[in-house]
């Protein structure tokens, strides 16, 4: 089974400052990793995903994440945040070799609050 730990439940940051949202995972098999964002009163949407290849993955809205297999981490970063980035961010994992389905295991989420 796979699990995800998001180390910070809330991250307050000032506008235009850099931010890192931390995610660690646990799995006995190789995995795919995802970051989803949930804006207030909306469903989740994909920010980025790591499948294979380059460990640095770029996503939408200026976000990027780096896969670190040795540290089993997939931290999300943005060099300069905007007020509109205020949202809940979810890290998720799924086994890469599953023949039975594609269910995602989500972390508990990190609430990013950007203030002026």
């Amino acid at each position: 089974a796979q699990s995800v730990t998001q180390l910070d439940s809330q991250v307050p940051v000032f506008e235009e400052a850099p931010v890192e949202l931390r995610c660690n995972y646990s799995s006995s098999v190789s995995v795919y990793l995802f970051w989803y964002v949930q804006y207030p009163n909306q469903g989740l949407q994909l920010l980025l995903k790591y499948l294979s290849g380059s460990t640095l993955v770029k996503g939408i809205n200026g976000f990027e994440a780096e896969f670190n297999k040795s540290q089993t981490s997939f931290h999300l970063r943005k060099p300069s945040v905007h007020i509109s980035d205020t949202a809940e961010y979810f890290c998720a994992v799924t086994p890469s070799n599953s023949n039975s389905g594609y269910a995602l295991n989500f972390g508990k989420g990190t609430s990013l609050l950007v203030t002026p």
Partner: protein
Amino acid sequence: DARVTQTPRHKVTEMGQEVTMRCQPILGHNTVFWYRQTMMQGLELLAYFRNRAPLDDSGMPKDRFSAEMPDATLATLKIQPSEPRDSAVYFCASGLGQAGGEETQYFGPGTRLLVL
């Protein structure tokens, strides 16, 4: 702009009543997922379907929950009888069913259920 739609968006009901939530996946998607989101548990997978067949519903309380796909354009999640602990936001998501779990899941806006 193709989207997953869910109805109703909000539902308030009394304990013991039947609740039916509906989801219309994106046309052409062949996997459908039901998730439940609560403050305490975060996002939990309840069930998912591929080509209308249930692949896994182990996350669903079998005695009161049921999920079906009567056709490719409609997925339903029913709770009978409902209980206050079922109060949550229920999300439907759909995907293309790409092999190995690399697919992006597209989430609907959710049904916010309150059971009194």
